[in-house]
């Protein structure tokens, strides 16, 4: 298992190889990418800002929980920080497993947990020159693992 914040493009093929193993029958990957539109506004790019030491800790914690829940150590999560252009991958989650169902379930569970609790914020840069922090959850409703 390996989880990290990264400042450079994420190599999907390398992550796929990393979770590969001879007793795996399945690898599921989820790739989050920068969209050109959000809630009707034309987006130019997104700046990802993290509370780095806590984000690293939460990513590692999510991988540990996923490992216990889905029964595999073949888990890698990389999340980018800094400015990303349209189409670039902001996060890649790779889960290898002997069987396909827990591999697919694992990738899905990890992205949902990541979005719920990892302290990362997006500053959207709009085509019209403005910028705004994206509020993923209703203010004050984020519950995390407290």
């Amino acid at each position, binding site marked *: 298992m390996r989880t990290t914040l990264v400042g450079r493009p994420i190599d999907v093929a390398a992550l796929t190889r990393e979770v590969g193993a001879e007793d795996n029958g399945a690898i599921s990957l989820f790739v989050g990418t920068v969209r050109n539109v959000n809630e009707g506004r034309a987006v130019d790019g997104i700046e990802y800002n993290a509370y780095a030491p806590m984000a690293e800790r939460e990513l590692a914690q999510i991988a540990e929980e996923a490992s216990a829940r889905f029964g595999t150590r073949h888990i890698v999560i990389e999340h980018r920080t800094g400015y990303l252009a349209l189409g670039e991958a902001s996060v890649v989650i790779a889960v290898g497993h002997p069987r396909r169902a827990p591999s697919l379930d694992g990738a899905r569970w990890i992205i949902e947990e990541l979005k719920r609790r990892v302290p990362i914020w997006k500053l959207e840069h709009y085509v019209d020159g403005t910028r705004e922090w994206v509020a*993923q959850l209703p203010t004050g409703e984020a519950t995390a693992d407290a």
Partner: protein
Amino acid sequence: MTLEVLLFASYADAAGASRVQVVVPDGATVADVVAAVRAAAPAIPLPKRPLVAVNHRYATPELAVAVGDELALIPPVAGG
């Protein structure tokens, strides 16, 4: 005791700073720190029950804090 609280994203923008200093009594809790931040930096758009991290973990309002703890106010997260 004097504590520093880290700010991020919209909170940091509103405060015009990446941290805010507050003075709270010894034995203060996370809730006391939040109240002190509200008083010290009213521009920060804190919800009724803001998320607070103590030493990189989400903390309950009842948790006691001490000098040396790393405190942070966590705006609604938006990773992925």
